[in-house]
C-alpha cells in the first residue's frame, strides 16, 4: 500500500516536473523539480524498505536515519569538528598556500615550471589517498596526519590550475603593461592574478570535495575515538548503518557548505567573469 503510494507520488512528481519544464524560465519554478525529485526518491526509499522488509543492516529507512541523526547531534558535531574543521579545513588551507607559493616560484623560473607541471599533472591524477597510511604512521593518529593527507591531496590540482591560470592573460594586456614599463610584481598584482582567478577557483572548488574525502578516508587508517571516518569505519562493521548514514548526512552537509562557501567567494572576487554574469 505504502509502496504504491510512493510510486504514484513519483509519477505525479514527474508529471509536475514535465509541466514545469515546458513553462517559461523562472527562478522560483526551477527550484521545484530537483526538490520534488529528491522527495520522491526519499519516499520510494522509505516505502521500499518498509514494504519489502529490507533488513536495516543493508539499508535503513530515511525515518530511522532522521531519528538517529536527531538523537546523536553532540557526537555528530564532535566528529564534524574533528574531521571537517581540524582535518579537512586546515589541510586545505595549508595545501592551498603551499601550492600558491610554488606556483609563483614556478612562474618566475620557467625551468621549474616546465619540469614541475608535467609531474604535477601526473601526480594530480594519482590515487594520492594511498599516502594516508604513510602519513598516519609519521604523524600519529591525531588530526595533524589527516591535515597532512589533505594538504598533499589538494596541493597538485591547485598547483596545476594556478600555473595554468597565470599563463592566461591576453597578449594585448601584457603588451600594455610593458608599454607602462610595469615591473614583474606590478604586472602580477594588477593583471595576471585577476586573470588567473577563474582558473584558481576552478581548482579550489574541486579541492573542497577532495579535502573532505581525504580527511575521512585518512581516518580509516587510524584515528582517535572521534571523527567522521572513524565513526563510519567502526559503526559499519557493527551494522549500525543508521549511524553511518547519519554521518554521511553530516558529510554531505559539510561538503555542500564548504563548496558553497568557495562559490560565494568566487562570485565576490570574479564578479566580472562571463560565467558569473549569467552569460553561459
Amino acid at each position, binding site marked *: 500500500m505504502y509502496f504504491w503510494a510512493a510510486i504514484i507520488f513519483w509519477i505525479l512528481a514527474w508529471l509536475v516536473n514535465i509541466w514545469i*519544464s515546458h513553462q517559461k524560465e523562472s527562478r522560483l519554478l526551477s527550484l521545484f523539480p530537483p526538490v520534488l525529485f529528491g522527495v520522491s526518491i526519499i519516499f520510494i526509499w522509505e516505502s521500499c524498505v518498509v514494504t519489502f522488509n529490507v533488513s536495516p543492516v*543493508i539499508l535503513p529507512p530515511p525515518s530511522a536515519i532522521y531519528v538517529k541523526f536527531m538523537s546523536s547531534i553532540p557526537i555528530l558535531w564532535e566528529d564534524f569538528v574533528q574531521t571537517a574543521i581540524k582535518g579537512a579545513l586546515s589541510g586545505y588551507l595549508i595545501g592551498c598556500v603551499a601550492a600558491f607559493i610554488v606556483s609563483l616560484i614556478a612562474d618566475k623560473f620557467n625551468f621549474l615550471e616546465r*619540469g614541475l607541471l608535467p609531474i604535477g599533472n601526473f601526480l594530480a591524477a594519482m590515487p594520492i589517498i*594511498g599516502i594516508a597510511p*604513510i602519513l598516519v604512521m609519521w604523524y600519529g593518529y591525531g588530526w595533524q596526519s589527516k591535515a597532512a593527507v589533505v594538504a598533499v591531496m589538494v596541493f597538485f590540482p591547485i598547483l596545476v590550475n594556478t600555473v595554468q591560470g597565470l599563463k592566461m592573460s591576453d*597578449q594585448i594586456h601584457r603588451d600594455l603593461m610593458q608599454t607602462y614599463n610595469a615591473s614583474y610584481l606590478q604586472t602580477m598584482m594588477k593583471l595576471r592574478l585577476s586573470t588567473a582567478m577563474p582558473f584558481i577557483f576552478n581548482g579550489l572548488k574541486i579541492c573542497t570535495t577532495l579535502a573532505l574525502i581525504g580527511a575521512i578516508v585518512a581516518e580509516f587508517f587510524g584515528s582517535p575515538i572521534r571523527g567522521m571516518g572513524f565513526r563510519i569505519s567502526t559503526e559499519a562493521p557493527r551494522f549500525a548503518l543508521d549511524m553511518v548514514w547519519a554521518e554521511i548526512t553530516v558529510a554531505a552537509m559539510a561538503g555542500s557548505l564548504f563548496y558553497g562557501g568557495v562559490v560565494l567567494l568566487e562570485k565576490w572576487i570574479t564578479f566580472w567573469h562571463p560565467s558569473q554574469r549569467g552569460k553561459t
Partner: protein
Amino acid sequence: MPVTPMNNRKLIWSEGKVVPVVSIILFIVIIWYGFSVVLNAPWEYDKAKRSSITLSKVELISNTWSQKRPKLPTPHQVTKEIWDTTVNKKVTSKRSLVYHGLITFYETIYGFVFGTCLGILLAIGIVYNRATAMSVMPWIITSQTIPILAIAPMIVVALGSAGFSGLMPIAIISMYLSFFPVVVGMVKGLKSPDQLEIDQMKTWSASKFQVLHKLRAPRSMPYFFTSLKLGMAASLVGAIVGELPSGGGGGLGFRMLSGSTFGNTLHIWSGLFSAAILAGTLIAIIGVIQKIVLKRMSLEM
C-alpha cells in the same frame, strides 16, 4: 632581466620538457634519500644505543637505507620490493603484487566501463529532456560536493551482508564514482556546439537523432576524453578505498591496509607505487587514444 616571450608558449612547452622534468625528478630522488636518513635515523640510534655501539656517519647512512621496516624506505628499496613481489612470485600467489594489482584492475575497469556507459546515457537524457535536466542536474552537481568516497566501505559491508561479495560491490563503487565526471563532462560536451551550428541544422530540418550523431557527438569528443581520464582516476581510487573494509579480499588497497596494520612499510609503499603505475598507465592509454582520435577529427583542443 630577460623577459620570456609568452606568446611563444608553444615553443617553450614543446621543446625542453625532458630536461627540466628529469632534473626535477633527480632532485626529488636526492632529497628523498636525504629524508630517508633523517626519518630512519632515530630507530638506528636506538638500536645502536641498546648494543652500545657508536655509528659512524657512513654506517648510519648505509644502515638507514637498508632497514627492514623503515619509516621512509629508499627508492631502491621500494623498487626491489616491487620487483620481488611481481617478477619473483607466482601470479596466483597472495604475496604477488601482480595478483593484487589485477584484482584492483578488474574492479576499476568494470566500474569504469559501466559508469561511463551510464554517464553517457544520462547526459543524453539531460541534454534532450528538460524535465530530466531540471530535476536531476542539480543533484549531480551537488553530489560532487559530497564525499561519496567515504561511504565506499559501508556499501561494501552492506552489499556483503546481502550476499554480494567479491569484485562486484567494489566495482559498483567504482562505477558510481566514475559516473559523475562523465555525466558532467558529456553534458558540457553535448551542449558545446555554438548557436550557428544549431541553426544550420535547423535550416536543414535535421531530426534530433541526426543532430546528436552528426554534430553534438563529434563536438563532445574533447570533453569526452577529459572526463574519461577523470572517471578512470575516480574509479581507481574508488576500487582502492572500497577494498579497505573487505578484510581479506585482496587488491592494492587491501595490501596497503595490511601493510599499515602490520607495520610493513615496504608493503605500503610498493602498493602505493603500483597503484600510481596502474593509474598512470591506464590514463596514458586513454591519452594516446585521445591524441589519435582528436587528430583524425582535427579537434585538438
